């Protein structure tokens, strides 16, 4: 049936060496049937626990949300549901707030992901040197990752205060006027991104570092013998070897950026779900939350959720396409 089966059944049995596992009886039909069953069904048993939990706590909510997105459901009167077809989706497409949230999600996503991964790459490069107290640097850079979104955002909100925050105090010291971090479009998006960057840069740096260390030394040696400079080595040896890792981090970061929620919510304080007075930092996650949990339009919130899901699938498809193209080019 499958390759593995063929191997197990068709391959001649090896002679047992020292009888380490006890003598094996001659192939008997019952045993071989057991063996076949094992081969055929074990994989399902392996994935079963995951899919069991996933079905109850993941798939059901997902499908229910899909169903709900085709209905008018209000959290204030959840007993009343009314079929509205694609109305919720049509309404989204014509809604300025939705597009605004989509735009913000994209810009904050770029603002947080690109510097984060670039800095991580640079840091990994530095960490790859022979360093004194190597472990200290690595652990120290990883600590922000241990901080919860809530705790981290709490601190950053204080630091970014307009009138009494430390950032503005420091900026005033170098002659830059106070920045209203929350009210400005760019300033607020930069502030929110900085929280994301702070939490994740060190973690990504370690992942890149691991990948760099897996690059065989002789590749560098060959390049060095060819007279390649350090920068050229980085471009022509390190980066290509890192490509799969970079791809992985890009995928994970993109998913994280699309779902960005806690940081802007808490950064906005009371009414944070709006993402500022002009929705200047409202992400899709916040828009969903606002629709569902503040305006109580559950059906519409579900439509936002499914739209996010579809957007991510689209990104994934494009990503896969690009990856394949890259592989072919190579």
């Amino acid at each position, binding site marked *: 049936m499958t390759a593995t089966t063929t191997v197990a059944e068709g391959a001649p049995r090896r002679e047992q060496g020292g009888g380490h596992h006890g003598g094996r009886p001659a192939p008997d039909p019952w045993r071989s049937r057991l063996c076949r069953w094992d081969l055929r069904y074990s994989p399902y048993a392996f994935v079963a626990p995951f899919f069991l939990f996933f079905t109850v706590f993941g798939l059901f909510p*997902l499908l229910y949300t899909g169903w709900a997105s085709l209905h008018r459901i209000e959290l204030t009167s959840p007993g009343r549901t009314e079929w509205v077809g694609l109305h919720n989706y049509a309404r989204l497409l014509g809604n300025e707030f939705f597009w605004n949230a989509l735009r913000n999600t994209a810009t904050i996503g770029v603002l947080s992901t690109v510097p984060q991964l670039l800095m991580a790459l640079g840091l990994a490069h530095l960490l790859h040197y022979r360093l004194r107290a190597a472990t200290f640097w690595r652990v120290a850079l990883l600590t922000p990752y241990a901080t919860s979104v809530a705790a981290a955002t709490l601190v950053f909100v204080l630091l970014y205060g307009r009138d009494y925050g430390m950032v503005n105090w420091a900026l005033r010291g170098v002659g830059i006027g106070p920045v209203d971090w929350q009210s400005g479009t760019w300033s607020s998006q930069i502030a929110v991104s900085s929280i994301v960057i702070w939490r994740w840069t060190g973690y990504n740096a*370690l992942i890149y570092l691991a990948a760099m260390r897996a690059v065989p030394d002789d590749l560098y040696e060959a390049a060095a013998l060819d007279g390649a400079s350090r920068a050229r080595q980085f471009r022509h040896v390190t980066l290509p070897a890192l490509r799969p890792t970079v791809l992985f981090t890009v995928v994970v970061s993109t998913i994280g950026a699309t779902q960005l929620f806690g940081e802007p919510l808490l950064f906005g304080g009371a009414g944070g779900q709006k993402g500022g007075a002009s929705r200047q930092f409202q992400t899709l996650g916040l828009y969903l939350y606002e629709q569902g949990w503040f305006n109580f339009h559950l059906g519409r919130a579900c439509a936002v*959720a499914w739209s996010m899901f579809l957007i991510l699938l689209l990104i994934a498809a494009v990503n896969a396409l690009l990856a394949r193209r890259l592989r072919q080019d190579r």
Partner: protein
Amino acid sequence: MTATVPARRRPGLARAGRQLHAGPFAYAVLALFTAGSLFPLVWTAVAASRDDTRLARTPPPLWFGGNLPANLARAWGEAGMGLALANTVLVAGTIALGTVLFCTVAGFAFAKLRFRFRGALLLLTVGTMMVPPQLSVVPLFMVIARLGWTDHLQAVVLPTLVSAFGVFFMRQFLVEALPGELVEAARMDGASSWRLVWHVVFPVARPAMAVLGMLSFVQAWNDFFWPVVALTQENPTVQVALTGLGRGYVPDQAVIMAGALLGTLPLLLAFTFFGKQIVGGIMRGAVKG
């Protein structure tokens, strides 16, 4: 490694390999980033050691004041931190262990075994990673309510006991790290699938399992959105307890910061004491694509 370096290497030739010592510039940049990483945490402690009025003044406090014990005590009492910490250890520990076990076997099946619908099921798994977590809350809560689990810890544990990311992560790791020959050799020895998992997969997957366990633990520890809906202050996790903090008469910033510190401290301590192992785990278990 060093032994294999050919002797004829010209001295001083630029080599991006690890053997190169870091220069002062590298140290300076690392120091800068380290300071940036640590500063917000240190400042949380500074703020927690002051009082509310002092935090309102400019220039902001840059060094510790004397109120840390008092603020920590208030935060501990107001938020019911003792129960919250015990609950969180239980919740995060169970989730981490469950995730590691279930995701490793599932990841192994996806990586090395052939079965019908494998591709479709894997796609489904990866697809779930893209479902925004805010979305499932209402239906999920309906399930939990139907089971009569609101305000019980299993309401927080079970929905996150497996993760699509974990399966994907383990699969990616095992595809590379577990040589097909090893599996086939074990098969030819007549090992059943379960023995195979036990004796071949788990040993090979160990570094990745350690990383996944650490990631799941940290994530479960810091999870906030779902626990706030599913639990109440009566039986909270740390993050839930923190939402009730500063409810004293008027929210007191210094006490809130002390609470944030209390909630983060156990993980920070773990990172300090086991930093080497954690970092080592990430280095060995990181997904190579």
